[in-house]
């Protein structure tokens, strides 16, 4: 199968961002940072129409898991594109956008918007948690 994340690399070039590749037998992976925050893009060799863009964050120790789940649920209802989930013993939060595409080229013109919504969702998640604390 050809490298179908090359349009994502082009989108990252458009955005003026550095990136690294970490492919293996199962998947194509691109990792990059924007404004210091880490993101990734994954596509599976056996499912060429699936593409995931995401970012993962560690929950601060003082955050109550149930509060975090409540906030995640609210965001899952409200936000376009982004799925928010707790995982890894519920101490990490994952923000992902899962897309069904003919080609990653479909994503390239919308990449900036998708990054914005990922960034905004993470910011809102942590803002809401901080508000819950006060």
């Amino acid at each position, binding site marked *: 199968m050809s490298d179908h994340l090359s349009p994502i690399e082009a989108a990252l070039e458009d955005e003026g*961002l*550095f990136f690294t590749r970490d492919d293996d037998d199962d998947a194509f992976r691109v990792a990059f940072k924007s404004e*210091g925050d880490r993101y990734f893009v994954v596509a599976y060799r056996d499912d060429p129409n699936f593409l995931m863009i995401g970012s993962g964050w560690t929950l601060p120790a003082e955050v109550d898991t149930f509060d975090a789940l409540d906030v995640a649920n609210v965001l899952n209802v409200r936000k376009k594109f982004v799925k928010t989930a707790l995982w890894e013993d519920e101490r990490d939060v994952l923000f992902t956008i899962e897309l069904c595409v003919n080609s990653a080229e479909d994503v390239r013109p919308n990449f*900036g918007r998708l990054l*914005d919504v990922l960034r905004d969702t993470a910011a809102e998640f942590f803002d809401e948690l901080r508000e819950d604390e006060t």
Partner: protein
Amino acid sequence: MASVRETITSFIEGEGHRIDASPLDEAEGVSELLFRTRGQVFSVTTFEKNPALFTISTAYEIPEWARERGQNVETLAKVNDEFPDIAFVMAHDGGLFVATSDEAPGSPENFTRTFWERVARVREAGARAIEEIVDRTESKAAAEKFINSFMRGDQ
């Protein structure tokens, strides 16, 4: 010891962004660092002779139909009241404006600590300004259309 330009370049690149660096005044040690974030190009100016000072700037193109220079200067002054830490300058015969923040963080290291907050502040001010310019032009055009119709007796 790393120059101010090298320190800031290294920081921004470490945050994931490509930098296009160019000297503005080599004798005075003034450099411009260009990078993109969220689809917008920003410029950071560094001063080797004064490592405590920096500027962050970004330019916004004004849509051709909204280029009413006098009115837009007035709008920028109004937005400046809301964002007093951000200066607005019209350029290219009113075709664009530049939003600039003069930063005095004391050191390059301090500058990097609040860097993205300051970039966000310049972006917020610039976005507000372009929104006001477009809104004001659109509402003025709507008012003129109404007045013209009224004068023709259509209303």
